[in-house]
C-alpha cells in the first residue's frame, strides 16, 4: 500500500467541493479570465464580502445608483434585481444580500463601452436588505433596499 497516495487522496477529498471546483476549473481548456473571488463569495459578512469583491468595505451611500427590486418577494428563489448607476466611470458592480449565508451574489466587471446597467435574478433566504455596490474612479458607492421575502429560496 502506498501511504503517500492515500494521504493525497484524503487531502483532496477533504478540500471539498471548492477544491474540486478549482482543480476542475484548471483542467478546462477555456482560459479562465480572472480568478473567481473565492474568499469574497464565501465570506459570511457583508463587510468581508465587499472587501473581497470590491477591494474595500467603505462605500459612500449614493442616490445616483438605482436599485430596482420588489418590495415583497413571494418566492425568495427568484428575486429580480436591476441595478443602474448614473455615476460616471462606473467600472465594477456587485449585488449583495445582507442576510444570506454568503451575502455576495455576484460581481460584474464592465467593459469601457458597457453601460452601468445589470439586471438579474437572485436567491434570498429571508427578508433582507439588498445592497448594490459600484466602483467608479476607484471609489465605492452603494445603495440599499429592503426586500421582504415570504418563502425563502435557500435550502429545501
Amino acid at each position: 500500500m502506498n501511504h503517500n497516495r492515500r494521504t493525497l487522496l484524503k487531502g483532496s477529498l477533504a478540500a471539498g467541493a471548492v477544491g474540486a471546483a478549482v482543480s476542475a476549473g484548471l483542467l478546462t481548456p477555456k482560459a479562465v479570465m480572472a480568478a473567481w473571488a473565492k474568499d469574497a463569495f464565501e465570506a459570511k459578512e457583508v463587510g468581508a464580502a465587499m472587501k473581497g469583491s470590491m477591494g474595500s468595505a467603505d462605500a459612500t451611500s449614493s442616490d445616483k445608483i438605482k436599485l430596482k427590486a420588489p418590495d415583497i418577494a413571494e418566492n425568495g428563489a427568484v428575486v429580480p434585481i436591476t441595478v443602474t448607476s448614473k455615476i460616471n466611470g462606473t467600472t465594477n458592480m456587485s449585488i449583495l444580500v445582507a442576510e444570506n449565508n454568503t451575502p455576495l451574489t455576484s460581481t460584474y466587471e464592465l467593459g469601457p463601452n458597457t453601460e452601468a446597467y445589470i439586471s438579474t435574478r437572485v436567491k434570498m433566504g429571508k427578508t433582507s436588505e439588498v445592497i448594490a455596490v459600484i466602483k467608479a474612479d476607484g471609489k465605492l458607492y452603494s445603495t440599499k433596499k429592503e426586500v421582504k421575502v415570504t418563502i425563502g429560496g435557500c435550502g429545501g
Partner: protein
Amino acid sequence: MAKSIKLRAKAKDGVATVKALISHPMETGLRKDKKSGKPIPAEFIQEVVCESGGKTVLSAQWGSAISKNPFISFKFSGAKSGDSIKVSWVDNKGNSDSIDSKIK
C-alpha cells in the same frame, strides 16, 4: 453545445441590449435531498463572459445565490446590427458552454 444559453441582443441608436437566459440548476450545496437526507452537491455558474467584436463587454463572477436558470441583461454602446456577440459560462465543476450570435 450551446443549448443551455438563449441569447437575444438588439441594437437601437448604437446601444445594444443583451438578454441571456441560461439553463442551469445553480445548486448551492446547502440543500438536502428530501428522500435520502444527503446534501445535494454544489453546482453553480462561476463566470459569465460576454464578448462583442472581439472585445470583452462584461465579465461577471457569480456565487451560488444567483437563481436557478439564471437570467442576465445588460447594455453596451458602440454596437450596431450585425455585430458578433458571444456569451460563455463556466461552472464550479468545470462545465462550460458558449453561444455565438449576431446583434439584431
